[in-house]
């Protein structure tokens, strides 16, 4: 699938690393005589404070030093069983392949768990007031259930369907069989009374994509590997130097790298 001219792996060559020091020089030049405040003003005014000029090397690229324990890897909402089903389903949506890791290795199910535990799981910034009527498709979601309830029901229904159709737990099915189950949800050939099977699948799919590509701060996109696979550089302060150039590979940086200036 990938062309030969597309470097598959980060090999350290042809990589432009806009270090913080270099950025400060560029930005300082660009700012000229204008007095700048704002969110990044402190970076301009106190460049000497920044000792660390390179982001910490991502794990897996060089010799491993002691990897600190990741305390983020625990559950806020899912039960063990729910987590296992979500993890397996997300992996089918975004599977591991020879390009790189899939949803499971990227921590996507942890991401979904953490999201369901907060505002998003409660639909707390959405209009959830009654009355509830069935509407046209063009009018969008009109259910009374919130996402955490939708996931509890949806994951259980995946399990029920696997048991009745395949006589096995979803997590024990072969990947192709898991795909068949998910397709049955996607196409609404599973008939549910409480939620829309396709609506649940759509939410699971979009949450998986979010878990692959959101900042690692949220628990997915482990070691920025989601970004690395598609050459997305993440959080960069400036592309002024490359915007007029042909494709340039840049080592990604996360929001945590931004914190190192403090």
């Amino acid at each position, binding site marked *: *699938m990938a062309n030969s001219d*597309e470097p598959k792996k980060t090999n350290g060559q042809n990589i432009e690393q806009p270090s913080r020091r270099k950025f400060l020089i560029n930005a300082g030049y660009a700012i000229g005589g*204008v007095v700048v405040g704002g*969110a990044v003003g402190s970076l301009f005014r106190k460049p000497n404070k920044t000792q660390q000029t390179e982001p910490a090397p991502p794990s897996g690229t060089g010799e491993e030093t002691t990897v600190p324990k990741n305390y983020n890897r625990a559950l806020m909402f899912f039960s063990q069983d729910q987590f296992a089903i979500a993890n397996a389903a997300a992996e089918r949506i975004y599977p591991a392949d020879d390009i790189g890791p899939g949803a499971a290795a990227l921590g996507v199910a942890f991401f979904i768990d953490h999201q369901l535990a907060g505002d998003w799981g409660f639909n707390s910034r959405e209009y959830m007031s009654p009355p509830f009527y069935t509407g046209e498709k063009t*009018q969008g979601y009109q259910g009374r259930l919130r996402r955490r309830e939708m996931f509890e029901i949806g994951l259980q229904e995946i399990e029920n369907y696997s048991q009745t159709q395949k006589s096995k737990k979803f997590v024990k099915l072969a990947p192709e069989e898991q795909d068949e189950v998910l397709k049955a949800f996607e196409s609404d050939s599973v008939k549910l009374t409480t939620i829309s099977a396709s609506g649940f699948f759509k939410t699971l799919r979009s949450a*998986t994509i979010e878990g692959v590509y959101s900042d690692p701060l949220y628990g997915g996109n482990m070691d920025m590997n989601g970004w690395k696979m*598609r050459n997305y550089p993440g*959080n960069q302060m400036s592309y002024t130097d490359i915007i007029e150039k042909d494709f340039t590979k840049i080592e990604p940086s996360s929001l945590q790298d931004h914190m190192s200036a403090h």
Partner: protein
Amino acid sequence: MAKTLPKTDVVIVGVGWAGGIIASELTKKGLNVVGLERGRERKTEDYYMVHDELRYSARYGLMQDLSKETVTFRSTEKIRALPMRAYGSFLIGDGLGGAGVHWNGQTFRFLPYDFKIRSMTTEKYGKNKIPADMAIQDWGITYEELEPYYDTFEKMAGIAGEENPLGGKRSNPYPIPPMKKSPAMQLFTDATKKLNLHPYMMPSANLSQDYTNPDGVSRAACQYCGYCERFGCEYGAKADPVVTVIPIAVKSGKFEIRTHSHVRRIIHSGKKATGVLYTDVTTGEEIIQPADIVVMTSYVFNNVRILLMSGVGKPYDSSTGTGVIGRNYAYQVIKGGATGFFEEKQFNNFAGAGSLGVNLDDYNGDNFDHSGLKFIHGASISVSQTGQRPISNNPAPGGTPTWGKDFKANTLKYANRAITVGGQGSSMSFKHHFLDLDPEYKDAYGDPLMRLTFDFEEQDKELAVFISGKCADILKEMGANHIDQLKELGPYEITTYQSTHNTGGAIMGSSPETSAVNTYSQMWDYDNVFVVGASSFPQNAGYNPTDTVGALAYRAAEGILKYREKGGLLV
């Protein structure tokens, strides 16, 4: 019993672009102005962690909290309107600076044709070109009359650009040169020149260089970080009311901003407004702010909703076509684009700025012959490089599954190999597209939600497919190996993001029978109420609205000062 505060000269409802501009202009002339903003304060320092696609884009961090207030929607009067429970088709701004904080900065002037669309269309193609239920109107003001105000807005904001070869005449060049040109933009420019089209650099409120505006406000150049739309600018490089006009108003000592102040009614007596009633959302207290002049500068929906809830102006009645408040809601036709996939080329799609692009107007307005076409007007066509953030941008050639092995492989392969040529289609107003108060659903304060009745018409469907074809032709010339284009425009649905360019409902015109405000944005019926913003567009153009909203705000400020001296209707 509401508490009543001391009277002020002017009260402004909503402190975004229109409110900020008017506050700045009026306080320069010594008027005392109170700005009521229902959201929170915002400042550049808020955006230190702004490169967060999940928080600001997928979770709509800067947008209005829909649990408190949304709109209801139905495609026709025959069905029940239901609430927009989650964001989709458009985003409603919130907080100081309003949508001016999280816009892209694409700053187009409308075409001379836009302002005289009914008369020019009739003159050239005859009366029958305009369907009976199409409600388009001339604005009552011409491009030439509005030009000086465009010029003022562009100098204040620091617009980077080059002259549009097919646009209206300019009195001055753009204050600063255009943005940098990426390889994708160069490819588009070369291809469209070969096709004898007229590309020009997209006018941009993301500064191409450091800039000090006529008010003495200095801002630094854009860094092309790729986080504009839905995000605030951590550099203050993107023009935003918070870093331009609001500080000028505040510095005068004449402008008091009250955040968390949710205006619910215009208070009036006879044919004059006497002030506004608002709720302090931090305490729940109801407060009356008396004022000599009331200026409505919130988003389209709330401008119209507050007028209707207050009984100010005659509500529009779609069955008779009479009345003005709620009339001529319009939107845009955005789905008429095309995406090209390049096997041999990769681009820096991750980099960009909100208004980094190349545009052309060969198929916009009446810049091409519509004799054999089943639609009027058209779209601006552009390639824009706003920064392809990875959650929301996963292009793959048509036929690719939306999940699984091939989805992953294709979206990874094409992340930096896909270029979209977009069409920003105009939207004509129709008699049966309008805004009114929902009879059933309420906001957090018990007030009715705005109800929106709208669908795509034959006009839109013809336009979308035509424009998509033109976009595909351009991509072919650009050398795309595979091109996906629109086959058919389906019904309007509120779930997919399209455009936050909602317009109308308190439209501008030359007659009180068919418009709510005159060309100074002054209400015909209540001469001390000014309603400013895209709510005054009688139909929508094929461009982003902000330059025109800004120009109308400068003109309204001039009108308010005139009114302050002489009183009465200004037109």
